[in-house]
């Protein structure tokens, strides 16, 4: 009994940190979305006005952000899956190197990576000067930088290591024996993949997709730096409501609307994947 108490007590500092610097601020932030501003001061209220304004003013931006986040999450998850698959099943030696490289770049250089893509994708950038000197293009491609393409490339590059972590974790758990048995019984490579490998790495697939979807739907730095004047994602509006207009209630309503929509999408994604991969 004393032991059981001790095992709960040691978790307490982590729980306190979680409550005071995550749960509490987010609850308060949610409450604020029902308040309004008067003379730059927050006034407690219980109105849905902010949410109505969000739907009226930011609906298009929301749809665009969603499309971008879905595209980025899909590409990231696919790429991470293939890299993890290669490391797990195709190559021992180069795979280990690749895994190490991907994981080593995981925790560093968020802004530096964005900046690096800026120097690669610009009209004077590396990619254009390489294509030009190879004679593949006559004039520099201008839509590489300051465009939605640049946002997709930059965020995929940033998110692949994060997606790799759960993906490789679940692929590593796949047992070799049933795979060999299925192959001996004449199953094609595709059948083995769809019926044995994919169902077992569902948690990894979901975690990779969820993480990259949530992070890209909420990012504002990447679209600001490489997205150009027309690529506004919801994060940019949330940030500008907050920083330029000091309107926390609208910013908060916008944040929670997009979060709720994201969670609904992820739930649907989970159901769809589970349905598609159900044993036949």
């Amino acid at each position, binding site marked *: 009994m004393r032991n059981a108490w001790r095992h709960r007590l040691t*978790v307490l500092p982590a729980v306190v*940190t979680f409550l005071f610097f995550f749960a509490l601020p987010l609850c308060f932030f949610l409450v604020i979305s029902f308040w309004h501003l008067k003379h730059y001061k927050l006034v407690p209220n219980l109105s849905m006005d902010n949410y109505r304004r969000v739907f009226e003013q930011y609906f298009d931006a929301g749809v665009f952000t969603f499309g971008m986040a879905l595209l980025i999450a899909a590409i990231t998850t696919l790429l991470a899956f293939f890299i993890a698959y290669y490391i797990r099943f195709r190559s021992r030696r180069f795979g280990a190197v690749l895994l*190490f490289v991907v994981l*080593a770049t995981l925790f*560093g250089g968020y802004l*530096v990576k964005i*900046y*690096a893509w800026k*120097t690669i994708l610009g009209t*004077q950038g590396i990619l254009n000067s390489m294509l030009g000197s190879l004679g593949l293009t006559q004039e520099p491609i201008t839509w590489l930088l300051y465009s939605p393409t640049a946002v997709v490339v930059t965020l995929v590059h940033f998110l692949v290591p994060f997606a790799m972590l759960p993906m490789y974790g679940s692929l590593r758990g796949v047992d070799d024996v049933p795979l060999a048995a299925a192959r001996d019984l004449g199953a094609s490579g595709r059948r083995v993949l769809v019926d044995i490998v994919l169902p077992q790495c569902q948690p990894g697939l979901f975690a990779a997709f969820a993480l990259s979807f949530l992070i890209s739907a909420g990012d504002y730095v990447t679209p600001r730096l490489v997205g150009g004047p027309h690529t506004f994602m919801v994060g940019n509006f949330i940030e500008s409501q907050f920083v330029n207009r000091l309107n926390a209630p609208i910013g908060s309503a916008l944040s929670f609307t997009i979060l709720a929509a994201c969670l609904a999408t992820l739930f649907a994604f989970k159901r769809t994947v589970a349905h598609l991969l159900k044993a036949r």
Partner: protein
Amino acid sequence: MFSDRSSNLTWHLFAVLAMVFMLSPLVLVVFFSFGENPHSTLPVGKLTLGWYEKLFADPNFWRALRNSAVVTLSVGVLSTVIGTLAALGIARWRATNAGAALTVLTLPVMMPPLVLSLALATMFSTFGVRLGLHTVIPSHLVFTQPFVILIVYAQMANFNYAIIDSARDLGASPLRIFFSIILPIISPTLVGAALIAMAVSLDDFIITFFTIGSGMTLPTLVWGMLRTSLDPSINALGTLILAATISSSMLALKITQYRG
């Protein structure tokens, strides 16, 4: 046989391309930081350390470095202590409860940083908390402690608890058990977990930006350089940040053997 070999070739080609995609942006930043060409375009020009000299002559760099060092070290120590205590406790829980606790405590990593940082900034301003490094540190702690908890928990899941039981039977106190049995066994893992927490904290820009007030850290200094003019010493600063975060994660991966 032939088809098998050609499909293997395709796979290896894919792997090489993936490697190039992941590494080339980082390699370029390092490359440009030593070149004379100030526009970060090819050709890079003569080899030079000029951008580093320019960076080291900037008093803002030293201010940012000092702040980053304070935050990173504090976050590293605090999240390692708090996260390890939590992981040791959770490891003794029933599997379903432990899974639920891990999921909840890991939520801050999944939350878009913008939303979390605005929630924190709003809370601090409403309760009249002055912003500074003391608000940045706990704000980092909440999303670095999950990494420590997950890594230490993974190790404790294969821990042989029989040694603890026999130590207790021989009359060792809980503190004695912790310091002379558990700690020596898990200390490599702790060093690795601390390094990862520090890399995450050192690299954070969004949460820092909204909770630091008027001060600056290395990432907010990069942000300033990115926004104002294209200052070529940004390559030098970027190289230093990459060197710090990548070497600490590489060291951590080596020490802990943690792979997801």
